[in-house]
């Protein structure tokens, strides 16, 4: 006990299933996740192989007007530990002996999680756009006061082009893949439920 292992790894928000699989595989090999830093640095503690199972969760705090603390209390009551938090993402674990988190092939849970990841992606996108709008507003304000500035215009243009580039290359395909996954799940549930 007590031996820690730190691993770099990266998963996009569309890859939460892969991330779960990886964490569970680590746990089966006796490496239990205890912390995650900046989304990419995973800290494991050596323990009994197969003692815990892991799951990612993305509780929507606005959902049903419940606060995050009440939800975490509820999880604790169900024998589920919140290992750590990264923004709104929760890394959960429970004793494997207490049974699985949900049914094998639980389509509805999967759809809900994909939907939450999609909403998260939209929230992040709108936050980014709002930040950029504020930046442009202040840029115009400053230029009105001090007159046209090549440097300032260059900085704002640079950030703007960078943001558009990042959104097109990274964020839009990510949201697309989440949307496709959601549609596939909805079709499947339409038949099986």
């Amino acid at each position: 006990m007590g031996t820690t292992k730190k691993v770099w790894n990266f998963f996009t928000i569309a890859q939460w299933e892969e991330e779960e699989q990886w964490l569970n595989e680590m746990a089966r090999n006796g490496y239990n996740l205890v912390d995650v830093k900046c989304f990419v640095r995973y800290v494991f503690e050596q323990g009994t192989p197969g003692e815990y199972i892991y799951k990612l969760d993305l509780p929507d705090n606005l959902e049903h007007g419940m606060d995050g603390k009440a939800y975490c209390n509820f999880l604790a009551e169900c024998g589920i530990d919140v290992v750590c938090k990264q923004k709104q993402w929760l890394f959960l674990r429970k004793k494997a002996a207490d049974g699985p988190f949900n049914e094998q092939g639980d389509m509805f849970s999967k759809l809900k999680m994909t939907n939450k990841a999609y909403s998260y992606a939209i929230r992040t996108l709108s936050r980014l756009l709002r930040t950029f709008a504020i930046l442009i507003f202040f840029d115009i304000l400053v230029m009105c006061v001090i007159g046209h500035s090549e440097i300032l215009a260059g900085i704002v243009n640079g950030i703007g082009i960078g943001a558009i580039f990042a959104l097109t290359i990274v964020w839009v395909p990510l949201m697309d893949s989440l949307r496709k996954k959601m549609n596939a799940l909805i079709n499947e549930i339409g038949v099986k439920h």
Partner: protein
Amino acid sequence: MNNSNNALTEAVYYILLALTTPLHGYGIMQRTAELSSGRLVISAGTLYGALSTLMEKGWIKQLDIVADSRRKEYQITAAGREVLEQELARLEELVANGEKILKL
């Protein structure tokens, strides 16, 4: 609530059945597993969402919190029982029709 064509999900059906006796969150999970002989595993997230939705609909209610326990207990309401009875009638119709056609 006269949406007779609105089928309950299996999870909601078993949660309502379980709450014919007062239970707290974890108790509901255990009871639903027991009722379905271990087949139905309701995830904590699903249960949490379902409990607040069912409370909003007035199908279940929260019982007063016992002083020595911080756990919230829930119980089915008369409206919830009515929904269960409607669902049972719907399920019986499904079974009757299935039997009539397949077992003749």
